[in-house]
């Protein structure tokens, strides 16, 4: 893995999300109520809704267009819906957000 520093955890609001533009498309970084950070595709497989604009609850997010709910650990759609979003390794180190460059198609700049 090659970790790339993309910002500070406080750049993302609690229970909120921010987008990172990557070679594989927009990836959303979600910050949970417990200060965990999870990364997944920003695009809902249903009708392309921007997941970073959804409500983050527990370790899930609800798409703002048609309320599909995704588990941010597995990427699986919850309940009766079927579909999956890609998830990406991300870690927080001393408040810095590090994303796996290999997984998002980019080598580490470091």
């Amino acid at each position, binding site marked *: 893995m090659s970790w790339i520093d993309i*910002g500070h955890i406080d750049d993302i609001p609690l229970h*909120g999300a921010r987008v*990172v533009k990557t070679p594989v498309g927009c990836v959303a970084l979600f910050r949970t109520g417990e200060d965990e950070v999870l990364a997944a595709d920003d695009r809902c497989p249903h009708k392309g809704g921007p997941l970073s*604009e959804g409500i983050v609850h527990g370790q899930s997010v*609800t798409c703002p267009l048609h309320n599909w*709910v995704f588990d941010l650990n597995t990427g699986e759609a919850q309940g009766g819906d079927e579909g999956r979003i890609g998830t990406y390794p991300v870690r927080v180190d001393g408040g810095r957000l590090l994303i796996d460059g290999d997984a*998002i198609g980019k080598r580490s*700049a470091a």
Partner: protein
Amino acid sequence: MKQKLVIIGAGMASGRVIEHLLDADPDAYDITLFNAEPRGNYNRIMLSPVLSGEKTYEEIVTHSDEWYAQQGVTCRFGEHVVNIDRETKVIEGENGHVPYDKLIIATGSAPFIIPVPGHDLPNVISYRDLDDTNAMIGAAGKGGKAVVVGGGLLGLEAAAGLAERGMDVTVLHLMGHLMERQLDEAAGYLLRKDLETRGITVKTQASTKAILGGDRAEAVLLESGETLGADLVVMAVGIRPETRLATDAHLDVARGIEVNAQMQTSDPDIYAVGECVEFDGHLFGLVAPLYDQAKVLADSLLDEPSAFVVKELATKLKVTGCDLFSAGDFAEGEGREDIVFRDPSRGIYKRLVIEDGRLLGAVMYGDTADGSWFFGLIKDGTEIEEMRETLIFGPAFQGGASADPLSAVAALPPEAEICGCNGVCKGQITSAIEGGATDPGAIRTMTKAAASCGTCTGLVEQLLQVTLGDDFQLPQAQPVCGCTDLSHEDVRRLIKSRELKSQAAVWQELGWSTRNGCHICRPAVNYYLLADWPLEYRDDPQSRFVNERKHANIQKDGTFSVVPRMWGGITSPDELRAIADAADKYGVPTVKVTGGQRIDLLGVKGEDLPGIWADLNGAGLVSGHAYSKGLRTVKTCVGTDHCRFGTQDSTGLGIKLEKHLWGSWTPHKLKLAVSGCPRNCAEATCKDIGVVCVDSGYEIHVGGAAGMEIKGTELLCKVATEGEAMEVISAMTQIYRENAKYLDRIYKWLAKVGLDWVREQIVDDLENRQALAARFELSQSVYRKDPWAEHAQDSTTRAQYAPLANLTLEAAE
């Protein structure tokens, strides 16, 4: 031939006697019922919920005039009995004599008034009957200060009710802690703390010396020399048996009218029942023994053998949100041992008093769920040595059983009291179930359990579940979402009554099953907190749908639409130029006039939002809230300014309304319109609130919709002036904000509460209308501001509209 039975007093005890009598033998007696109050029997212990506004008088009536008429009981309500002539066996009422074969005295008790100077001033009242309750409700309507003398059950229920109705309340209590007869010091402390968080001031060891004032009480003087201002003084220091008639008739009277175990007085043809009675040295203030007495008395009248025995009693306080239970004897003493459990952070305290391996008393505060089980152990004198280690954790932990609440209910003995208000035990309920009752409603009808204060409803449901197994489905009010079993209505009520002021408090106190809710409950709870505590709760943008978080409507391709406000539909060339410039600068593909007479800029990229807002702000334009569950637009016609039919300045009123209401968050979107004449060019009669101007004033309409359902409005009222129209509309908006379920438009909410109720609240009750309008204004002092400017100017917030990082550029190199 039927015997003549006369009953003096139509209270809870005599009501029960009549029921038992008619059930057993309807033809035995001709009954005449006297009552000094000009009404029949109501559930007196439910006066507290009436005072606090949780129930109405109609809801606590147990035997209406019609009921007595149907049963053939002759009622003489509002008539005092002057004398009992035992020689000739005649009752002398104010309006004539009635002969009797058997007589029942059920005169109850009278409030005790401390005879300090000033106790007879007109605004010094007791707390005993419906008239007292109504007097307190009337006094509370004027606001001001109330002093409640007496920190026992009645005094505290009065204090909580008056505080709920907005009075500034002080409770004076002679002893060192509240409810000292039912609670120990620690529980008294928790109760005091609970009351103080409701804004009630508690003074213990406070002895009243005099009530000061001229024509009315104005202050209370304490022995310590302290004076407390008072617009109302409530004396709730105690009650004593009403024995005047019995004493005059030379019956044996001690503290109460003395009776034997058949409820017979010293005259074999005269019986007594209820709070006026003394039996074996005991007086009776709680309802369960009264009902036992009623049964015995009915049996005695029918010559059935029956005897009254005194049982242990348990007490609960009927103040919403104060969970308190006390039973048996908890005084300290030689050879008595305590088991105490404290959880200060949850406000829970339990104390058990044990003597000789048996439970003697229990005091519980904060968590009283196991109260009836402990009460059963006390009553039955059960040996508890074997379960001593886990006793305080309640029935669920006994005998190795799991912590299943149902096993606790299953373990209750048949005599365990389930409904304290109506004295119903488990056995009565299980036999009702065996007799065919399959739901709580049927249980209520057959046994009266859960028919009064309702705190035992859960127990009744569990009993149904235990007895019927899979045949019983717990009835469910539609819960908010999968995170809770509570309905929207429950959540709203509990947020108010338990003063929950943060989302974390709601998750914790109301037992949410998820860490922090979900996309369904979070916006609702966020709204409820914000509506109830406008000054204390801070709005949480992350609990809002994206439209509200980003102050723009998300479109299907992920772009946004931006709608600037045009007050009352009026704009200017400068504003139009600024809108056109912004559309050019940010490449807006579509410019559209909305249904609410505003201009919509469609297709703005998310990251451009702060920029376009800053530009529009620069021209004096602010957010039109076209995205919000709040005031959207006030649509208008031109009115008297230009129209030959216009009757009033409809545009001007529209602008005023929009400037008054903008920014206010509501359960769902709120759309208004003002039409200048009944031709209704602004289409006011299909809006949430619509005004139709007529020559004589303003018709205010409510409950229209032109969305998923199309509904015309209903007329709420007609007012003469613009000022009144503004006030009614503010009050209407506020009553909807305070009561409706999240995502119910006004018309949906009205279908639940009824237009008549709303009319009573804001048309008939002027004070309430003003209070609602004032609360609306208070909340607007926080929320009447432009969210666009806040986001455009705050660099941290503004940054959040842009990507966190862009990792594509390097890859392209």
